[in-house]
């Protein structure tokens, strides 16, 4: 990300504002300064030396990295690149929330973002490797149960960071180092499965064979007789599954496979324009301020308007939304259908 590249993004931006109403940060703060378009403008201010790093990066640091803006932008401005460039500039000056800084320090030491030692189970004769990322293994309990019901043999890799935090902060050098060190621990010849769409995206980008859980379950369920699950649920489609991994179809396909399920989507905040819950794949919860909480409130209102029960396919969305509404995980629906 060179200065020239950022200037190119700025010049490409027509300041049309199409990215404005889809940005969750803008929607909760209702202030032009918090729009993606402003981020692009502020980056220019920094390039010109008209703003200092703290000023120019303020909004970029509030972003929840949901990528709605970039998908909406008709001019193809790579807004996330600009955000990362601004964040990196802030890092270089030691500006950033403590919770993110300590996480990066842990990563540098080869630990997980929570300061835990990665654990890689070495089992040769398994079908897949379950990759939990920074999630606790307990959060994968239902997945493990469903794997057993489906007869899937697996080993587990825990607390090994996929590198997403480094990507989102624009810390490219650290990311490269991290990937070389951490990902080399993974068994190359085995297919990885993860419930986290952020991990799935990063592992895929690193050239590994990986399936996001909805796709894996969808493949497996084709071979099984399923019972109707008489539930009306509204789907919270995770940003990283939709707009990073481009795997919205996989989630839809899995949900369609479950008989009896009545699916509702929270129009217009669904599909490519699915609205972030504020968690930003867990990482953005380390921000200072109450942006993520306000965004969650907005999202919960959208979801509640559509149906009582929410279903999602990301452990971070699940954990974060559950603090405010009852949420089901797709693996729970699958368990019901298999029962």
């Amino acid at each position, binding site marked *: 990300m060179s200065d020239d590249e950022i*200037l190119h993004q700025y*010049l*490409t*931006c*027509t*300041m*049309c*504002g*199409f990215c*404005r*109403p889809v940005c969750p940060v803008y929607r909760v703060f*209702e*202030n*032009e*300064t918090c*729009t993606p*378009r*402003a981020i692009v*403008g*502020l980056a*220019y*201010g920094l390039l*010109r030396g*008209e*703003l*200092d790093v703290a*000023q*120019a990066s*303020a*909004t970029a640091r509030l972003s929840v990295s949901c990528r709605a803006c970039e998908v909406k*932008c*008709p*001019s*193809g401005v790579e807004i996330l690149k600009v955000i990362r460039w601004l964040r990196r500039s802030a890092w270089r000056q030691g500006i950033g929330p403590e919770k993110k800084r300590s996480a990066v320090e842990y990563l540098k030491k080869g630990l997980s973002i929570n300061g835990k030692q990665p654990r890689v189970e070495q089992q040769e004769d398994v079908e897949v490797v379950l990759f939990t990322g920074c999630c606790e293994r307990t959060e994968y309990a239902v997945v493990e149960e469903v794997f057993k019901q489906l007869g899937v043999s697996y080993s587990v890799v825990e607390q090994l960071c996929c590198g997403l935090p480094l990507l989102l902060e624009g810390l490219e050098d650290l990311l490269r180092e991290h990937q070389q060190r951490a990902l080399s621990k993974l068994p190359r010849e085995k297919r990885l499965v993860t419930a986290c769409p952020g991990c799935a995206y990063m592992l895929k980008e690193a050239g590994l064979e990986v399936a996001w859980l909805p796709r894996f379950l969808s493949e497996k369920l084709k071979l099984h007789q399923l019972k109707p699950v008489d539930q009306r649920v509204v789907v919270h489609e995770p940003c990283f599954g939709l707009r990073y991994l481009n795997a919205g179809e996989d989630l839809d396909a899995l949900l369609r496979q479950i008989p009896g399920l009545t699916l509702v989507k929270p129009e*217009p905040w669904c599909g490519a324009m699915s609205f972030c819950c504020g968690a930003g794949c867990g990482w953005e919860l380390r921000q200072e301020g109450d942006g993520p909480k306000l965004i969650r409130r907005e999202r919960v209102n959208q979801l509640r308007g559509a149906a009582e029960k929410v279903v999602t396919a990301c452990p971070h969305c699940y954990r974060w939304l559950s603090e405010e509404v009852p949420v089901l995980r797709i693996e729970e629906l699958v368990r019901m259908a298999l029962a």
Partner: protein
Amino acid sequence: MSLWEFTWEERLDRFVTELGHHFPDNRVLTDEASKYAYGFDASIHFAKPDVVVLAETREEVLTVVNLANRYRIPLVPRGAGTGLCGHALAWYGGCILDLTRMNKIREISVENKWVRVEPGVVYADLNRALSPHGYAFPPEPGSGDVCTIGGMVATNASGSRALKYGATREHVLALEVILPNGTRVALGSSTLKRSAGYTLTHLMVGSEGTLGVITEVVLRIAPVPTHYATAVAAFDQIEKAGRAVERLVRLRTLPAAIEIMDRTCIEAVNRAMELGLPEVAGIVIVEFDGFSTDEAERPLEEAKRICQEEGVEQFEYTTDPQERARLWAGRKAVLPSLSRAVGGKYSTSLADDMIVPVSRVAEAVKRFAEIAKRYGVTIGTYGHAGDGNLHCKVIFDVKSPEAWQQAWKACWDVYRVCVDLGGDLSGEHGIGFTKAPFLRLRKPRELELMRAIKRLLDPNNIMNPGKLGLEEIPDTFLYKLRYPVKL
């Protein structure tokens, strides 16, 4: 002590301090990042305000107007900042009054066919709320997902549907306005007809924030057609497309929209959206609507015959809602898609809006292309051909001072062509600052009258100064550019 004994800084300081007595900190923004962010809109310009206020109620607007008037602080009402000519920029500094938080739909009265809204309601949100009733506010600007009703009223915005349903002006029944002296006035009435003196609502429509702040709008609404038939006609010569447009407008069933796109635009949209439109000299999109399949589709036959007689290369139509949505999404994305157009060159919001008589559309498009060639810039032309409303994007090396001079000359010629053809400077986007230099091409009397009205209503000239050529006609638009170029 008289006001004039205070310096500008002192007045501003007092203004901001007093704002602080009425608003919480997070709604009076004076930090550098906010001032910078509000320095942009969708135009080629950049101008920073000294302070931004986020108002939530009409009472708060009243407070800000009174303070601005007392301290003679320029006050710029702002909606979503999608104006293309620097309308919502604080040209001389001062205060931006952000109205987007005033976004309540106060009342929907289907039986009386109107809706009463605050000015910050986003166009698309309004129509989403009206949709369960089967109604809509029809003008449909390309920026409809973003722009506000206040901004639309202040610029008389419209879009492809204006041909059949009219522009914003035709839908404004009543307004509440806070005048520059702090008087709150109700203009018009919530009735479908009215003959009770001057139509002062119309004075406010298109006033670009120079006469007061609009705090409430009553808009006429219309039933949403249930059936659409949309055709794409591809022509190998723009003149043929123009002749077809001229005849399509005369059809007994008025099309709901007639749009035109030249080759530069078609290619840009295809690139950005993989739309697969035929890459010819020009395409015309013609749409009919109604409340039955027959009503929407029947006129297509006649339209096809006309296009064939004018030598159409390809004529295809769809009644499939998804295919139609895709087509319109492409049409709406022309403007920003042109931003991806040519390597190393960038598109600018110049010659963004022109209007000519419908019968001169083809001639205008052709002459714009000649102008582009003459000055070595790329001009993409598209627009609502059915009512003679054309838009361009001018694409060139924005880092080059020479290229900017050429662009200026090209725009001058474009507007001269429009005026020569019996047209005008803008059909829907307004004048703002960027188009103000071209006011010189028009007869001066109307502007004189406008200036007199402005002096009457805003003697201290606090409302959005520097726009609409109300103080003076600038000699060029090459001021306060947002680009890295020294002129």
